[in-house]
Structures are given as C-alpha cells and as structure tokens.
C-alpha cells in the first residue's frame, strides 16, 4: 500500500493551488456579489488545460488521471466554489458524455473544442418534475422527416446559457421499449437549435457566479444523428455519468471545507478576546482539530474512489461513500468555521459568509444526501 501521489499528480495539484490562490480567490467576493460569470478565469483555465484535464491529448485534453482531476477541483473549490462547479460540471457532466458514449465523429466535433475549453456544455437531466426521480423524464422527442422534434422543460442546468455555451445534452423519451417502458435517449442540442430557449439565470443562494438556467424546448428540432451514442441508452448513460460526477462533487465539498478551515484558522489567530488570540481557547482549537480530522477523512475517501476509477475498477460504492460523507462534512465545517468568526462571519465581506451559502448545494446537487443513501442501501443489498 502506498499513499504517495505521483510527481505529476503533485505538480497538477500545486499548479491548481497556485492558480486558485493567486487568480481566483481575490475575485471570489466580487463575483459572488455581482453574480458575474468569470469568463476571463475560464479562458485562463482553458489555456492551462483544466477544462479538459482528464481527457486524452488526441481529443484536446491534458491526459491527466482522475486523482489529478479531483485534486484540481478541490484546490479551485478551496478558493471559490462557483469557479470550481463551472469547471467540474463542464468536465464531468458536459464533456464526459461525449468521451464515454460519443461516436468518433461526435468526439471530434464536440469533445475536442470542449476539452480545449473553447466552449462550455451543459447536461440536462433534471426537470421541474423529475429530480431525484430522474428516470421520470417528461421531455419527449419524436422522429419526423429525419429530425427529432423535442418538447419539454429542463430545470437547474449548469453552464447552459453563458456566452460561450455550445449547447446541452438532454435526456428525452424517444419511444417505447419492447417491455412497454419509455425509451430514453440522450440528445445533443446545440445552442442555435430552433425552438430551444434558455431562461434568465436563476437567482441563487450560493454558486452565484456560476450559470444555472431553465431550458425550454418548443418543437425544437435537431438532425436524427444528434443522438449520443446508440439510441435507447440514455438511462444507462446518465447513471454512469452521475457515478463519475460523485467524485468531483466530493472534491468540491472537500475543497470548500478546506477553504472554510483556512479562513477559520487565520481568523482564530488574529482575533483576540479576553486578552489572547481565540485560537488559545480549547473550545476553539478543538473545533479546528475536528475540522481538519474530518477533512483528512473525506480526502482519503475521495482519493480512494478516484484511484479505483483510474485502475479501471468498480468505483461506484467508493464514490457514493465519498460524495455522501464529503457533502455532509462540508456542512459541519462551514458551520463551525462561521461560528469561530462570531458576528463578523455574518457579514458579507467575510469570505466565510459566502462559503456558508455555497455549501448547501453540496448536499443536493447530483444526488441528494437521501438519494446517496438510497444508492448505497441498494449497493449493500438492502
């Protein structure tokens, strides 16, 4: 057994940390306040190779592994959760479906510019009435005259409406299977598709600098070949995508927790009460110890899941454990970190107040805490 990262993994983590601390962190407060999508940071991340980190070089990626990718997401989330979800959703939900299921032609056409970070791409699974129950897709697509005509609505779709968004891949019912159940396929819907519109950005409690929109399809038409991979594979495809996504959501949660810990640690040494730094009170120092202990715990779980994936093993259970634990851990950590800040933590100009707001989605997105437990109960044969 060996806990060492490779030199390459260390170098990628340290690049991500330098970039996040120097370029992203100083901007986080303003971006959150203005709800401003960071086009320039995304362009820089693209140039450095972050937007295609785990894809092979022949498809425009950087050729990194899952461990490096998870560490990079973690470091960026440590500085700003919005920037991190923009990258993580783009890689795990936007580009990965093309990499895993696309035909060679679809890979060349879509994956290459996405991995290069020239464009962003969304993944539209959730609907107003199909969230946890994502199989209950209401969006329908009918094949007429060599074209899919799509009707329906998607809710909460990340990266779907920026100036550099190229489109969204959506789940839709494309027919009825032999057993009478709905046939679900993933359809590639480019931004300029007639009948496809995006709402204004949602106003959100956290992740305010990330782009989340409602999508509507009113007789939207795409050519017949815009099915991702084989027709009827949509359900299996999105389950696989969500399995991989759990590693990056765990990384987002741990990064946020680390960022909150950083803030609390620094503040506890600066803030004096009763004639000494508050870090000298055992009640405060024990909080910090507990925070870091749990962060270490979650990090090991996340790295284990990423490593299993890199080894080509079944990583589903490890990823679900990591996502569930890390999401809930981030809640405990931001809460205690804010507590250490006292009243100042309640003030907008302190980063911890943003982190507190950014945290909650870690327990909801890409499978709620309850759904994670459901998945794990099934894996445990319950």
């Amino acid at each position, binding site marked *: 057994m060996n806990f060492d990262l490779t030199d390459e993994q260390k170098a990628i983590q340290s690049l991500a940390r330098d970039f996040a601390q120097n370029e992203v962190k100083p901007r986080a407060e303003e971006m959150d306040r203005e709800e401003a999508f960071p086009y320039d940071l995304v362009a820089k991340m693209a140039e450095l190779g972050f937007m295609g980190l785990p894809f092979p*070089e022949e498809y425009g990626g*950087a050729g990194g592994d899952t461990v490096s990718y998870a560490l990079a997401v973690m470091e960026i989330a440590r500085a700003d959760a919005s920037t991190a979800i923009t990258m993580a959703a783009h890689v795990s939900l936007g580009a990965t479906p093309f990499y895993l299921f696309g035909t060679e032609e679809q890979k060349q056409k879509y994956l290459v510019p996405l991995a290069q970070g020239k464009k962003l791409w969304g993944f539209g699974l959730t609907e107003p009435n199909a969230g946890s129950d994502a199989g209950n897709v209401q969006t329908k697509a009918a094949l007429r005259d060599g074209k899919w005509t799509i009707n329906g609505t998607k809710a909460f779709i990340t990266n779907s409406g920026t100036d550099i968004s190229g489109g969204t891949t959506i789940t839709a019912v494309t027919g009825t299977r032999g057993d009478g159940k709905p046939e679900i396929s993933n359809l590639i819907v480019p931004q300029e598709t007639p009948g496809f519109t995006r709402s204004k950005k949602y106003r959100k409690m956290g992740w305010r600098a990330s782009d989340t929109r409602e999508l509507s399809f009113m007789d939207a038409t795409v050519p017949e070949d815009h099915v991702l991979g084989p027709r009827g594979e949509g359900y299996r495809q999105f389950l696989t995508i969500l399995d991989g996504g759990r590693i990056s959501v765990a990384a987002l949660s741990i990064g946020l927790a680390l960022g909150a810990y950083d803030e609390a640690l620094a503040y506890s040494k600066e803030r004096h009460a009763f004639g000494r730094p508050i870090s000298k009170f055992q009640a405060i120092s024990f909080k910090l110890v507990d925070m870091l202990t749990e962060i270490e715990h979650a990090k090991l779980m996340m790295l284990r899941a990423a490593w299993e994936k890199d080894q080509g093993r079944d990583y589903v259970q490890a990823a679900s454990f990591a996502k569930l634990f890390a999401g809930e851990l981030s809640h405990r950590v931001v809460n205690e970190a804010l507590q250490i800040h006292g009243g100042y933590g309640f003030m907008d100009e302190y980063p911890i107040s943003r982190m507190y707001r950014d945290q909650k989605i870690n327990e909801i997105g890409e499978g709620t805490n309850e759904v994670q437990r459901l998945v794990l109960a099934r894996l445990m044969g319950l």
Partner: protein
Amino acid sequence: MKIVVTVKLVPDPNSEKKIDPNTKRLVRTGVETVLNPYDEYALEAALQLKERAGGDATVTVFTMGPEALKETLRKALAMGADEAVMLADAALEGSDVSATSYAMAQALKKTGFDLLIVGGLTDDGSTGAVPGALAEYLGVPCITNARKAEVTGGALQVERETDSGYQTVRGPLPALLTTALTFGEPRYASLKGIMGAKKKPIAILTLSDLGLDRPVGTDGSKTQLVNFAPPPVRGKGKTIEVADATAGAHAIFDFLKEKKLV
C-alpha cells in the same frame, strides 16, 4: 540560440528557515524544495526570448545542488524549458560564492550557451554575488537588472532598471544577463507542460566530468560562516492614552515632528 538559465533549488520561502548550529548550513531536510523565486523570473525571461526568437532557440535550466533534489527541476521543464543539467557532487558541499561560481562556470563552459540568464538573488544564501563571479570566470559581459531584452544580429540589447529610470545597454553574445522582477511575472506551468515534463531529459554532471584546477567545497572556500542569529525581535510599540480624536491627532503629529518625519 542556446539560452541557459541558472536556477537554484532552495527551501520553500514560506517555510521557517533553520540553520544547523554544528555545520552552520541551512537545514534542507523536512522542508519542501522549490525553484528560487527570482530564478523563475529569469526563466520567464528566457522563455519569452525563446518564443520571440522562434525556430531553433532552446532553453536549458542549470542547477548546482544535491542530486536528491533533481525532481524539483520538473517544474522548470513544465513551464517550458527544453532540458535540464544538474551539477551534483558531494565534494561541492560547503562551497562559498567563489567556489560555487567557479564550479558552475566550468560546468557551463561544458554545456555551452549563447545567452546565460541568472536571477539576481537567492532566497537562502542571498549574497547576490554569484552573477558577477560567474561572468568573471566565464569571461563574458555581465548586464544586470534587465527589465527588457532583445537579441538582434548576434548582439544583446537590454533595458536596465535603475533607481532613477532605465538605461539601454548593448553587448555581444555570449553574455550573462540578470533579470529584474519587472521583466514579467513567471508563467504557470500548463497541464500539457506538466505531462510533457516527465519526458524531458535531466542530465547529471559530476566534478569528474569537469576537470577543475582548484579545490571547491569547504576546502576550496576561503570564507566561512562564523556566526548567525535571527533578526532582533521588535520591541513593543508606544501606547499613548488620549481624551479624544483631536488630542490623538495632535499626539501623533507631535510624535512624527519629533522624529522629523513631518
């Protein structure tokens, strides 16, 4: 054009520095080793000059240090240097500026260069004397504190930063250049660079490859570190009690006046 950049491997500047009281050398174990920060600026300058020269220009990073630290050089390769050369030999331990510069010069003669770019100062020894000594041993012109440089028609044209402005200086190649921090912020290593760096060569030279005609290491060093001490702890500031803001402003003004600061 062959550009060589000297890069010292130093303990992480953000870590606490300790000197071993017995050997009087910096403790380098248990701390992370990084590229000397000023040398990252020198590397940035080299990469910019390479990009502008295009075609056949190459950048080699050169270091003298313990072989165990070799992998630290990957970062320079990831930033865009083409290859690395390391002079490593236990007999170099304890070298002072003169012995260090002499050994480095012999190695640099062997690797060869058209332009040698050197950072101005290290974060550990901080003598700032190596560039001048190197130029002397190499017999090449030394142009310091460059904020801009250009190679045209086999000659080097440099804008030097000074306290009062800047000077334009020309010199023939081969030459030694030291960079000012205004030359440009060091770039990030890209992911492609990181992935590509593992395939780039790091050559190791030892003293037996060089054939020196004077001793180096402790024996070849005339200077010795005799004593060292941490900087004195700053005393407590002066606290003055005043009745209100106006009185406070007056008190501060009187204090500054007394110190002849206003």
